[in-house]
């Protein structure tokens, strides 16, 4: 699948998301500046992204653990997600995300 990721300077990157990887891992593997301090354990909120437009609705629902952890994100919005909690699947091909500010 492809992920369309906008970095903090507004530059758009089209990156590969291997099926089964998390979106955080795909972003990190592509060299985008995502801290992901806890390595995907849903324990730091430094892998915070905004999911663009209709994609937000298409994503599998967040677990309570993610909703809670988003309380520790510094600039959470209604379309905020933790990218380590989204798994890359073929149905998400074209997923659009924007890195949240650090």
């Amino acid at each position, binding site marked *: 699948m492809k992920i369309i990721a906008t970095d903090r300077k507004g530059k758009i990157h089209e990156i590969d998301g291997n099926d089964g990887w998390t979106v955080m891992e795909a972003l990190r593997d592509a060299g985008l500046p995502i*801290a992901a*301090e*806890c390595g995907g*354990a849903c*324990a*730091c*909120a*430094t892998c915070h992204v905004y999911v663009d437009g209709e994609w937000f609705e298409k994503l599998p629902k967040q677990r309570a653990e993610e*909703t*809670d*952890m*988003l*309380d*520790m*994100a*510094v*600039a*959470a*919005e*209604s379309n*905020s997600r933790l990218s380590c909690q989204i798994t890359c699947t073929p149905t998400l091909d074209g997923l659009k995300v924007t890195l949240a*500010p*650090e």
Partner: protein
Amino acid sequence: MSDDATIETDVIIIGAGPIGLFAVFELGLLDLKCHLVDILDRPGGQCAELYPEKPIYDIPGIPIVTGQELVDRLLEQIRAFHPHFHFSEMVQSLTKLPDGRWQITTDADTTITAHAVVIAAGGGSFVPKRPPIPGIENYEGKSVFYAVRKMEQFRGGNILIAGGGDSALDWTLNLAPIAKKLTLVHHRDGFRASQHSVNQMRELVNEGKIDFHVASVKALHGEDGVLDGVTLSGADKTEWHHETDALLPFFGLTMKLGPIANFGLNLHENLVPVDTEKFESTTPGIFAIGDINTYPGKLKLILSGFHEAALMSQAAFRIARPGEKLRFQYTTSSSSLQKKLGVN
């Protein structure tokens, strides 16, 4: 600072994460005494701060252990060596003394002198997350606070608290009785904090004693670091002005390299390059172990850090005890090691 206020020891360890803790053990077997400094208020670094309840499966010989359990066991293992901890202190500077020893100072004005310094700073020091509000740094310490050191400072104030975790809720409850006005803002009408605190907070809102808004802070207004108001933005993106004289954002901690960047050490992408014989930086007498170091093949694993601690200790001994012979011994069979461990 006068000389007698300076603490003297064999080795200073910067960082009390799992690797700094195990270094106490390896150094202790060689009779080297340690002082550890950590900006956190308790030992354990990432294990305690980020995943105290999550399991670790790759500690040799311990098939499963949680982050906090590992820290507790390390503390038990090093107890016999009586390490001195300086918690809630940030190491600010590192200088070489004319006699060849090293001195560190902390932001609490603690000064420690030692023969060697071990940087076990992991992913950097844990510091509060800073919300991305333009110009916020100009207000920090004057009107924007990430921690409450003296509650009295906020008596009679018009306080705005941002966040939805335990710290945000605890300080809402603690400061409500002494503030003139207190407002809590959070991006949703739901909280990560304990249910008990949430209930108490909602009660205060119902009684009209505090205000709660689903909103976030977008801009700060004031002069010379003194706040007089903020722009809040609600769930529907409408913005409004809110008068306040103090903002307390509580979004947990993040790791930042911090003052180590100014120690004059050779750094590579915020890591300290070391050799793999002594785990010494390119500055003799300054060692780096655990997540903070880098060398060909480095893996950021706890077990690698433990190995690094053992080899580093041999080299630190030679600096701290020049001319003394190092004897290789097993804890299983050496009665002198067992005596140090207090098991014999």
